[in-house]
């Protein structure tokens, strides 16, 4: 394991059809961390401190989005690392894969409109999970979404338990942090945009696309910096 205080190493897993992997590599590098691309065929992980499952259309979303990647060889190692407490972040398709694998609760269904949605969205931090301690509950972030299957659902009776156990990480909200039906882009239950379970976190918005004001927002920079435990001023 590399030294946390110096330069954390982030493994970014690339499945066939992943398409946000390079954007994620750039984001991690911009934060001063080391990014290592990991092939989905690996049976064991090289020494890394963090893992990201990036967005995309792994295996062309065939069967169900995330379903085939959830059974890729590397996922056994991911599961093992998560069990031992390694921070794992799933973004968009990565979130879908983690749900399909059972590392996160719930499932992501096609948007009720049946249409892909790409737009800027504000989300509110409901319960900052392990690793995101520096992010205050109630913080509102501006991040883009871009997905076809982002409607978060849970089994009957599971929703209350998610809230009780502090597993609801992000909710789609207005810019004041109010979460209501008018600002729910995809019919997710209780406006849920991200959840956590132990050291595993998943979200539909794309923090790696919000790394600078000129791109529309730099809230993703703060988000990823918090997750990596990088505080204070982060150099570009």
């Amino acid at each position, binding site marked *: 394991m590399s030294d946390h205080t110096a330069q954390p190493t982030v493994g970014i897993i690339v499945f066939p059809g992943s398409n946000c992997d390079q*954007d994620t590599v750039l984001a991690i590098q911009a934060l001063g961390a080391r990014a290592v691309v990991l092939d989905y065929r690996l049976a064991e992980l090289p020494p890394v401190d963090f893992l990201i499952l990036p967005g995309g*259309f792994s295996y*062309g979303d065939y069967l169900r989005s995330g379903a085939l990647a959830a059974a890729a060889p590397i996922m056994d190692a991911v599961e093992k690392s998560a069990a031992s407490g390694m921070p794992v972040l799933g973004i968009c398709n990565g979130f879908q894969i983690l749900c399909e694998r059972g590392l996160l609760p719930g499932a992501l269904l096609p948007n009720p409109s049946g249409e892909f949605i*790409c737009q800027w969205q504000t989300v509110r931090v409901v319960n900052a999970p392990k690793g995101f301690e520096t992010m205050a509950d109630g913080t509102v972030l501006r991040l883009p979404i*871009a997905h076809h299957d982002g409607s978060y659902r849970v089994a009957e009776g599971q929703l209350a338990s998610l809230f009780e156990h502090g597993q609801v990480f992000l909710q789609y909200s207005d810019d004041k942090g109010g979460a209501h039906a008018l600002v729910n882009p995809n019919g997710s239950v209780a406006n849920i945009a991200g959840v956590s379970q132990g050291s595993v976190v998943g979200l539909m918005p794309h923090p*790696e696309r919000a790394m600078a004001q000129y791109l529309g927002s730099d809230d993703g920079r703060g988000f990823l910096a918090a997750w990596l435990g990088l505080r204070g001023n982060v150099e570009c």
Partner: protein
Amino acid sequence: MLTYMDVGLSFKENQEIVRLLRRHPNQLELGLFGALWSEHCSYKSSKPLLARLPHEGRFVVQGPGGNAGVVQLSYRWDLAFKIESHNHPSYVEPEQGAATGVGGILRDIVAMGARPIALADILKFGTDDKSQTLRRGIVEGIGDYGNAIGIPTVTGTVGYSEVYDANPLVNVLAVGLRARNVHVGADGARPGSVLILMGQATGRDGIHGASLLASQDFGEQTEEMRPTVQVGDPFMGKLLMEATLAIVGKGLADAVQDLGAAGLTSSTAELAYASQVGLIVDVSQVMCREPEMSAYEIMLSETQERMLVSIPLDKLKETLDLISDYELPYTEIGRVVEGDFLRIVKGDVVLADVPTGVLVGGCPRLPIPSDLSTLLGEELLEEETSIPLNPEWGYQVLGHPDCRERSAIYRRYDSTIGVRTVWGPDHDVAVLRIDDTDGVAIAVCAPARWAAVDSTAGGIGAVVNALSLVATQGAEPLGLTDGINAGNPDKPQAYRRMAGLIEGIAQAARVLEVPVTGGNVSLHNETRGQAIWPTAAIGVVARHPHPLSPVLDQVARPNLRICLLNPPKVSRLGGSVLQEILGITGSYPRLDLAGIKSSLHVLMDMAQKADQAGLAAVRSIGLGGTFVAIARSLMTPSRNVGVQLNLPADSLVFDLFNEMAGQWILYIEPDFLSKWEDACQARGVRLQDIGITTDSPDIVIKGGRTVTWPLQELWHAYRQGGDFIGR
């Protein structure tokens, strides 16, 4: 037994084949000729006209003829870019037709060794009920492919008219980025190299797509054409893109050619012709999806997601290992030899053997009629000289389908992937960051109504419109790409209109000194004798001087001066949205290109240093005229600023709604007005001070009687259409 007619050839063309070959072609050879001599592949009707376009320019790396044009962006980067059409397939099967259009143009860019970084869509739909279904399917198909393969759709344009009811247009622009030291194309294959076909296994889809579907008018039997449409698989497209770029990046291939229209036939013939080599292709080595496929079917299949690469023997192993790493299916299907022929074999048996000079270069071209220049004379329809303003027109024009907000379409496309999009589809021009110093401005337009009567005027207008858009950013245009869409070229009127359109593009590109580096021609957009308006889709790529801080297109502050840069001496409404609303048919004016050239220079100079020029915002005037340009510049999230304009009452309607391209609305800090006046005077450009921004959220016109449009109501019209209820 196939005849020449079955493969879409004419009697004369068949005679010519026999003359050039000095024998009758066999069945397979006839199929090859049918494909390559089709309008779609040979450009036989348009090529002599396209020769009029300027192709030379300071930044041109690769002009027309390759898979895409290439221009130099900076000392590090080149840009490959081109427009392709997929009109006929999108009518027959909207989702797959549009999706494969996106896949096809992306493969063209990849075949140039460039990584695609942006897509733009130019769409035209009809207005009947069926068009709604087509529109839904086409938008879905474009999104399905672009989103999944992960290339952002950063800009686009959509227009509506009943002339597109049975011929919707789907033109797609793709832009790719290539390091300056990379050079690859279809023209480098050397004898001794091995031909590898990789990607999707070849199936029976899309046979005769080029020769019959895309090169003939639609009639009653269009329904039967459905099997000629291909099916796209963006997942395979993504793997194929990555594998091809890796092969090119490592310098393993001496030539690359994607498989598009006419599949293996055109890709092998064109690679051989461009590289001046012979090819021996063994159809028994082609992976097929279905058993018992004939050589004819294999050669003419238009199965998507296939790429042909020519690999020198010493690099073969490394290449095959790399393709395997991407888990892409591939086979070695032939080899490159000395010669000038395409030989199709099956094991030891020769099935076809034709000189590529005849196959690719021999197709008889339609000569330009000697009296063309007379035929292209200006078509002028008289218009009224004075019309009193009806304020309702403001809402109707802004809410017209061609002018109103279109997020319902573009939010179905991923515009933020790739982390380059500084300005996306909510602006008229896209701005992309390339690296710390380099940026690109991309604009597309297709003002088809302008070409409805006088197509030359429309062609000029389209080019001016595209260049005016990137000029708002102070961006230097590097090259143009054109998508020509027209009716049946065998009919004199349709031919003349297509010729006029191309002539207009050529005139404007020549005077404004921007080269056309490639494009596409789609003819036979005609159903039951009804042709579309001749439609030019123009795309431009430009070098952005400061991509992280685009020159704004909206205003949020009162007390800015509002000026028109280069307003026409005589404003005319011909071809405008307002004329259509009023039920008038008029001809679009022929623009004063010399004046526009000077204005472009002024704006480019000033917009490059917008801060020092006090330029708070700028918009290019196009569809809907000055009125729409001003209204849209006020549509900020808070919508708390308005304008007060002083315009003479007698020409008010003309001033507000004329769509003469090459004029701009400027919002200038008052202290800088004299600087602009000086700059304009130095180049003899007109600058008209027409008003001021106010803190009252409405558009107010003074001059004669006062007219007021509250911004809130304009916003409703913009969002919901001009005829919304409740105003």
